[in-house]
């Protein structure tokens, strides 16, 4: 039988600025015996352009994405918002069988681990008080978990994974799923509000006795980290892949 092939998608900003997140993602998938490949010549899913209104100009990047990943059974990336973009906004391309295949098979990392591989315990150990930032595109867009404003049973893919990490204490926040204010180019064009929203999210984690903020979308974490470092606050920021891959 043909083995399932997974194409590893590393978003542009993670590739350039947070290689440790990409490494952790790759190592996690390899640990689970996934047949994982990293297609060369990857750039970006086109989200920064689309969200800024320049969807037309992102077609080149989107087509390249499809070209890079069309041969894989699954496309897995450590970023909810990029995966959301592929799944929901690639309708600007002609819907060829390749485009449809790529859109249907793109998965955010946590979702892939829990829903496709059926694994929640990765044998990780991380003895710290952790606050989970539920990024909006993953939460409300990809439905990685239940949202506080939608009525129905509680579920969370990320919590399922973190609850199985040895020594990890998942802290509860006052506002469980409020946006951090990153929002791509929003962070620059609506600078004042973006910063205020980020500060408020951080304060919630501080009030809840958190040591490490984690999440499945490093763009939100980059924004929060920028504020934490500027204000010299006693918090660390780590992508969920790094925590799930840690065996301290």
């Amino acid at each position, binding site marked *: 039988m043909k083995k399932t092939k997974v194409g590893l998608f590393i978003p542009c900003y993670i590739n350039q600025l947070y290689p440790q997140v990409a490494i952790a993602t790759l190592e996690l998938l390899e640990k689970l015996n996934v047949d994982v490949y990293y297609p060369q010549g990857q750039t970006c899913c086109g989200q920064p352009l689309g969200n800024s209104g320049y969807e037309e100009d992102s077609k080149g990047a989107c087509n390249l994405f499809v070209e890079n990943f069309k041969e894989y059974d699954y496309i897995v990336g450590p970023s909810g918002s990029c995966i959301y973009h592929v799944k929901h906004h690639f309708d600007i391309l002609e819907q060829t069988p390749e485009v449809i295949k790529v859109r249907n098979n793109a998965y955010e990392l946590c979702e892939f681990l829990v829903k496709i591989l059926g694994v929640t315990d990765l044998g990780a150990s991380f003895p710290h008080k952790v606050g989970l930032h539920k990024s909006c595109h993953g939460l409300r867009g990809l439905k990685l978990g239940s*949202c506080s404003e939608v009525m129905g049973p509680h579920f969370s893919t990320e919590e399922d994974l973190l609850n199985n990490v040895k020594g990890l204490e998942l802290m509860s926040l006052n506002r469980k799923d409020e946006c951090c204010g990153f929002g791509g180019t929003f962070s620059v064009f609506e600078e004042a509000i973006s910063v205020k929203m980020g500060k408020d999210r951080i304060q919630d984690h501080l009030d809840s006795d958190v040591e490490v903020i984690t999440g499945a979308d490093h763009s939100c974490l980059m924004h929060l980290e920028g504020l934490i470092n500027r204000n010299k606050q006693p918090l660390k920021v780590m992508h969920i892949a790094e925590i799930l891959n840690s065996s301290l």
Partner: protein
Amino acid sequence: MKHSEKAEIFNKDEAKVNWHDKALWYVREKRDNSAHKVQGWEYLRELGSGIKANVLSNLDEYLIQFESNAKKNGIHVHWASNAEEHNEIVNSILVKHDAKKVVKSKSMLTEECHLNPYLEKKGIEVIDTDLGERIVQLAKEPPSHIVLPAIHKTKEEVDVLFQEHLGTKPSQGNPEYLVSEARKHLRNKFLKADVAITGVNFAVADTGGVVVCTNEGNADMGVHLAKAHIACMGIEKIIPQEKHLGVFLRLLARSATGQPITTYSSHFNKAEEGKEMHIIIVDNGRTEQLSREDFRASLHCIRCGACMNTCPIYRRSGGHSYDYTIPGPIGSILSPGKDLKKHSSLPFASTLCGSCSNVCPVKINIHEQLYKWRQVIVKEEKQPVIKKAVLKTAGVVLSKPGLYDFAGKSARFALKNFPKFMIYNKLNAWGKARDLPEVKNDNFDEWFKKRNKDG
């Protein structure tokens, strides 16, 4: 002024922003608790959305049916294609009754049509009778929220305002005292009014009657005391049958304030003996919005304000930052349809977090429409030169792996080696309050190549 600029000004007073945010978050949580008590809440939203979709697809028929039934009840029905016509019709009714004093129960449509200044110019006294509306009217400001029009004002600010306009004593913002003084003041206005104007929450096609929802009973008081009642409605306020009220009345109050139902759901089906009732049905850009496939669902809106309460940007920028009658997420998808140029910054006043779509009782895909408006605006409106150049260049770079690799390396080199002043300056809005990521190692591409060579 752009939303971002107004929001920045609002953010100068951080304590006020925190207070504003908390007040609205409190309402959002009340809404959650209240919705949790309704079994099948999500199904109810689906039903509400479905009924509205039906209404919009058959709007012409429902409107004609409504008009015919209203006329049978002896109601005078008028049609206005725009704000100007609406105001003229109101005025003609006032002239007919020789009316000099008007009481109004909250109506966002009359705000949209700028009825107050129009009537005031003609020497008519118009009193907004909803307490919040009266407060902003005294302050000569527009409402900053459609359900909580004075949410941006503290009790202490209201105290000062009442001292100035109503001659109250200083009370350090004692709410009981202020409300009782407002009640006395308004009672006096109700008793002397010639004509009462109300909005319409729901117009029922199969009965020809309208329903107005208030918490203060001010619509009732106005209508029952005045000689004539003018109800002003947008064409999208129609619901097909009276039984559908069961869906919308349950959705509306819970979404708006977390109440099971508004204190008064007043049904007006015909004029009282010896009095007159008029209904003005207003388009004012709505059919045009209806014609835009991507944005027509914005007309589902039942004006509950839930999207404002949940919106983390609205809560921190205040309603006036939107500079439109309907602020917040729903206003940001309605306003570009009215004036694309003037409101072109509003669809960008969002992180597209999607919470607005989740709370919307009639399931408007608000955040998706915000995304779509952005595409339209970039095509149709002149864009800032730098923004355009940066994004267009990014489009080219991201489509070519070689260029991308070079750009990535250059950026990382700059972050690592350039002196601080070159990175943190006026052009870098990110760096004003946030540090940039620290660059330590190779990028992932380089790491991966090395590992494979070594391995």
